[in-house]
């Protein structure tokens, strides 16, 4: 991938937060996308992988303008598209398209396939019938036709040879030169070209829809049928045809094959690759299936909790993952589809809430290669038990708790005590903590017992946390066009793969 040319789309420090600002008191916003930057180049497929809830769909939608960006920019052809409105926004929407995961939900069951595919055409009043005149500076006249703008391709080109007008029509349009009559009138020097298209716009749209169905491997009689009469794979083809209707050059494909059986999935993937070559499309391919992404993507961005933690050429990343999260993700692919040679690195727990992401590295709470502080010499198993205890406090702090809790507390009843003892005992029973560490845990439990679970978690973080809990890592270059956001890439630390291997052995 050459980075010299101008990217089709350039995403800079993009943030998308949900639920921001309430009238009285609002919870902290959901940080779905939290500072993402990357470029997408013409003709490439950028894969975007990550677990559900990591913000990959929101990122795709924000790039297209379907979600409002909270901060940052998405630049296409020199314009920040997050700021567009009105006419300019409509124009941008014609250049891009989206294919959704679930064709059942994204296709209206009450419309025929023909209507579905024509809907974007109607909504944008396609075709625009832009007329360009070659050979003279001329005025354009006629119903439904407009002069071509500087950034657009002409649908109808009129070449003037004296008083003769020769008409050519852009190939992609279902229109021939015979459907267009052009004449020239001259008054006071500047010629006026009058253009009349004899085919109705609705007819052109209809023929375009037939053409689209053919392009995605459906036949003419599918035009009159309803989505429920189709198989999953065929419905996804309809979704693709609709996305292509307005001749976009960039598509966001949001899990387009996740709902399909493997044999059907393979055909849709082949179709998407064929269309990309034929039409010169650029794809952002969102998926949680890492094998699919390996097959289709030129570069891959790995997303975790609103951040892109690693980004690089697909084969490089799959062969030699740099970020601990990428390692865990690849090692979790079941069966021989996993490129990871070592044992499976099973992550503990689930990602933290995007309302309350960790202050430092977003992956710090689950990282199998987390940097440990130098103050303690503990076996890895004990570190993990302490991590888990902190997660327990954090989870408790977030849970609403029972409605009776405040009342119980008011009358002096022990709310958290009874089950807390048991949980701590379960977690730490088999571990030999040094006396100092023991007293930190005691202090944390004391706070939790007083109802301050957040404080308890904080106490543990102060004592057992490390740089990973405080600093958001910068991107480190791992090779050409390949970055990874992990503090372990800094000089002086043991490498990610070595650390994980050593620790897995230790547990």
């Amino acid at each position, binding site marked *: 991938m050459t980075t010299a040319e101008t990217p089709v789309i350039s995403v800079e420090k993009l943030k998308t937060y949900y639920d921001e600002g309430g009238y009285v008191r609002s919870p902290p916003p959901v940080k779905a996308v939290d500072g993402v930057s990357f470029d997408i180049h013409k003709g490439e497929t950028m894969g975007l992988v990550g677990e*559900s809830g990591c913000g990959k769909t929101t990122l795709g939608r924000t790039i297209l303008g379907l979600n409002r960006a909270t901060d940052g920019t998405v630049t296409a052809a020199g314009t920040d598209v997050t700021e567009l409105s009105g006419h300019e926004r409509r124009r941008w929407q014609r250049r891009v398209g989206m294919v959704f995961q679930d064709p059942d939900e994204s296709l209206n069951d009450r419309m025929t396939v023909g209507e579905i595919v024509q809907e974007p055409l109607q909504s944008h009043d396609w075709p625009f019938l832009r007329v360009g005149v070659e050979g003279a500076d001329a005025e354009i006249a006629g119903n439904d036709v407009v002069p071509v703008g500087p950034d657009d391709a002409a649908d109808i080109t009129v070449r003037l040879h004296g008083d003769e007008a020769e008409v050519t029509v852009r190939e992609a349009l279902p229109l021939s030169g015979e459907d267009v009559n052009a004449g020239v009138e001259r008054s006071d020097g500047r010629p006026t070209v009058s253009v009349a298209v004899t085919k109705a716009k609705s007819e052109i749209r209809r023929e375009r829809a037939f053409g689209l169905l053919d392009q995605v491997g459906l036949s003419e009689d599918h035009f009159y049928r309803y989505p429920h009469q189709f198989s999953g794979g065929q419905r996804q083809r309809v979704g693709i045809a609709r996305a292509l209707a307005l001749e976009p050059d960039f598509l966001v494909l949001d899990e387009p094959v996740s709902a399909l059986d493997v044999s059907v999935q393979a055909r849709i993937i082949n179709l998407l690759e064929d269309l990309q070559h034929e039409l010169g499309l650029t794809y952002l391919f969102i998926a949680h299936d890492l094998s699919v992404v390996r097959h289709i993507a030129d570069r891959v961005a790995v997303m975790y909790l609103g951040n892109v933690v690693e980004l690089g050429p697909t084969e490089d990343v799959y062969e030699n993952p740099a970020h601990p999260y990428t390692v865990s993700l690849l090692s979790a692919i079941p069966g021989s589809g996993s490129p990871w040679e070592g044992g499976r690195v099973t992550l503990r727990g689930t990602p933290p809430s995007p309302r309350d992401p960790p202050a430092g590295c977003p992956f710090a709470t689950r990282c199998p290669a987390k940097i440990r502080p130098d103050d303690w010499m503990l076996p890895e198993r004990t570190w993990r038990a302490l991590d888990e205890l902190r997660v327990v406090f954090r989870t408790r702090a977030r849970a609403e708790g029972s409605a009776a809790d405040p009342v119980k507390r008011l009358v002096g009843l022990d709310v958290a005590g009874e089950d807390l003892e048991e949980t701590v005992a379960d977690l730490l029973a088999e571990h030999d903590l040094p006396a100092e560490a023991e007293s930190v845990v005691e202090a944390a439990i004391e706070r939790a017992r007083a109802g301050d679970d957040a404080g308890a978690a904080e106490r543990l973080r102060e004592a057992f946390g490390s740089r990973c809990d405080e600093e958001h890592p910068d991107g480190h270059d791992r090779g050409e066009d390949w970055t990874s956001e992990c503090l372990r890439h800094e000089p002086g630390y043991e490498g990610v793969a070595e650390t994980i291997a050593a620790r897995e052995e230790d547990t």
Partner: protein
Amino acid sequence: MNGVAPGGTHEHNPLLSVRDLEVVFHTEHEEIHAVDGVSFDIHEGETVGLVGESGSGKSVAARSILGLVDSPGHIEGGSIEFRGDDLTEDNWDAHRGDIAIVFQDPSSSLNPVYTVGNQITEALRIHQGLRGTEATEEAVSLLEDVGIPDAPRRVEEYPHQLSGGMQQRAVIAMALACDPDLLVCDEPTTALDVTIQAQILDLLADLQRASDLAILFITHDMGVIEDATDRVNVIYAGEIVERAPTGPLFERPEHPYTRALLKSIPGRTEPDERLPTIEGEVPTPTGPAEDCRFAPRCPKAFADCERTVPEHVSVGEDRTAACLLHDPAYDGGGDSA
């Protein structure tokens, strides 16, 4: 069956033995033979996979083992023997609790208005007669067994307060509450993320090691099959077309369908290559089999395939395939491999 038992060679009697199972759905227009002559065995402590695409009948086969096939579906033939008792002769109640099932979507298996603890203690009361504190303590210990941290607190929580992976763990805890000998897992990880899927697969393997549990694993995901099972049955349009120990099946699939299915999985081919595909759709079996149902899509089909129902023949140690290419009685156009 040409002398090859559908469960491989074992010294002991199988825990579960399904023979020639027929499940037919009668609809207004047609009858659908969703499961059409399926046979397989499961032994104690073993994980058997049933893998196929949607519409292959794998879930219906799984549900019929628990007597969960709803009208208009009926078991119309064959037997399901559990410890020697034929369940289809209405013996389900006698073995209720011996067989448990975990479904794909954990949120549909949990009642949203009861706490997780309530739902587990209910199972404990019904199947083990535990009540009160005893039941609650057992529920907490089950939740701990399935790796839910802070179980004493979580037992008080409602399903919506748990993440998807935690919900599936709770469902597995519920299934374990009846102390089953056989756990039927119907796509238990399909709705989960890959890292959570890895956790659940590890959990199932741990549980099996600890208790000699037999697991029937139903999925469409070949990768999961490869990791989680000891033996595999590949099902296509209601019929098992190949059965084999897991390792050999992946090394050398013998049925053309298995071969095509494995090839169409991305990530196993070179990234620049086009994915090999299987043309056509999985047919809906609307009548008894009269031919090989895969023949219309099979790259190696020959004339006999369209008029003969292939029998399972041995294609190696402990493995069979229902394909005329492997049947010495037919000359299927030369080299079958």
